[in-house]
């Protein structure tokens, strides 16, 4: 299959969120594990909201504002268990209008 360029931000833009500013509900436990130990960095392409990005130096950044709370990143990081995953505080995060 030929990969096509998709801007996921355009999709997320349609969604309703109540962001818990300054309190991300998911955290990378050790940046070093992403940069130096994890080879696949599968979170960077499996996350359906594209919250994880690889940087030039091989590190991985996480911005949870667009998170759809699916749980995939936690499960696929089973080799390193490097994702600290919680649901957002009550009432925060994604608010589906249709679901």
């Amino acid at each position, binding site marked *: *299959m030929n990969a096509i360029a*998709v801007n996921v931000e355009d999709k997320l833009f349609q969604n309703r969120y109540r962001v818990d500013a300054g309190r991300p509900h998911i955290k990378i436990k050790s940046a070093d594990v992403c940069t130096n130990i994890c080879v696949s960095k599968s979170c960077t*392409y499996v996350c359906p909201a594209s919250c994880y990005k690889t940087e030039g130096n091989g590190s991985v950044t996480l911005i949870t504002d667009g998170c759809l*709370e*699916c749980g995939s990143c936690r*499960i696929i990081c089973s080799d390193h268990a490097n994702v600290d995953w919680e649901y*957002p505080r*009550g009432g925060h995060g994604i608010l*589906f209008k*249709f679901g």
Partner: protein
Amino acid sequence: MKKPSQFDAIVVGAGPSGNACAYTMAKAGLKVLQIERGEYPGSKNVQGAILYAKALEEIIPDFREDAPLERHIIEQRMWMLDESSFVGTHIRSEEYNKPPYNRYTILRAQFDKWFSSKVREAGALLICETTVDHLIMDGEQVVGVQCDRLNGDVYADMVILADGVNSTLARKAGFHGEIEAGNVALAVKEILFMPEDVIRQRFNIGEESGVVIEMVGRITDGMMGTGFLYTNKESITIGVGCMLADFKANPNKTTPYGLLEQMKRHPSIAPLIEGGEMKEYCAHLIPEGGFHAIPQIYGNGWMIVGDSGGFVNAVHREGSNLAMTTGRLAAETAIAAKAAGKGFKAAALSDYKKKLDASFVMKDLYKYRDMPAVLHKNPQFFTSYPDMVAQAARTMITVDGVDKKTKERAIFANFRQTRKLTGLMGDAYKLWKAIR
């Protein structure tokens, strides 16, 4: 440590399993507290979504009077797609167009809100915008929940976990381990709005009737999974879900949104959704491990219902009905245990498992127990077979001066080349055994 219990039961989550459970208990007079992290019930929930009437009917017989239903299904299509075509079956019957209808499309954000209003009418207390962080234990016994609010500890004689597929609470309490990526599918979907009459014309349906399309083939990029397209009243739901382990291992590093976008552009699908205005993009996991992946579902002071216990029949795309049925059976167990007055120890709650085993839930999951393994070991069901079938059909139907016999030979040569005939027979047998 033991505080006086304020409630007979706390239900965590207001999806179909939690609502069915809280409703049934409250109706029987139990003091029920239900806690939901969303702004309102449904605001965190995602589904295809087909509602199977039967499971809900057993809880609320007259639900059709005011439940927010989109369309009843009169036609089901099953498509196999290659790059440029599809071959499929359409099953349409006027019998499906006569009340009481068997299946409906719904929008979960609206449906869950409605179901929850019934739960409150039945007498349960609902608190939204509150995430349960931990279970409170007294030794082996679950005695309450710790919420993310000031003074957020609440006590009850029993806690029912209806917290969905991620089930953070059961994991933290050590009731079971982490979900395996091979036992769960990641689905993404969009809702596309368009005028009602466009939908009616495109799908050849009336004001209230609807069509569902299930798809396998090229659209999953070699991964084990399926696509779906459902008609709502004024919108179309389109989505695709594949095993999370396959997403992770995909050599093309295909993104879920890339997959969905590619699917929407398939020449067989694009005309059906053309002009649709995208209003929401969702993602959610589906526990598809089946029978062998079901964890321990009861213990001292706790029971697990719905997706949290892995109660999904992936072969038939059923989940919400299993969720409602497990919720109801857990509630009936709690009601009987309370009436017996012996408390909510594991021994008393073990009836829940017995009730489940006797129901369609466990019988169906047992029947298909080998299906996930068969499909996982045989990815050709999602790749070369749909290709072969689509190409074969196209070859036979194309009128180009080549005689049919020659075409047949070419098709069989292609079949054999793609997959040795013995393999083909073996696969047919494996599939037959798994679904028989």
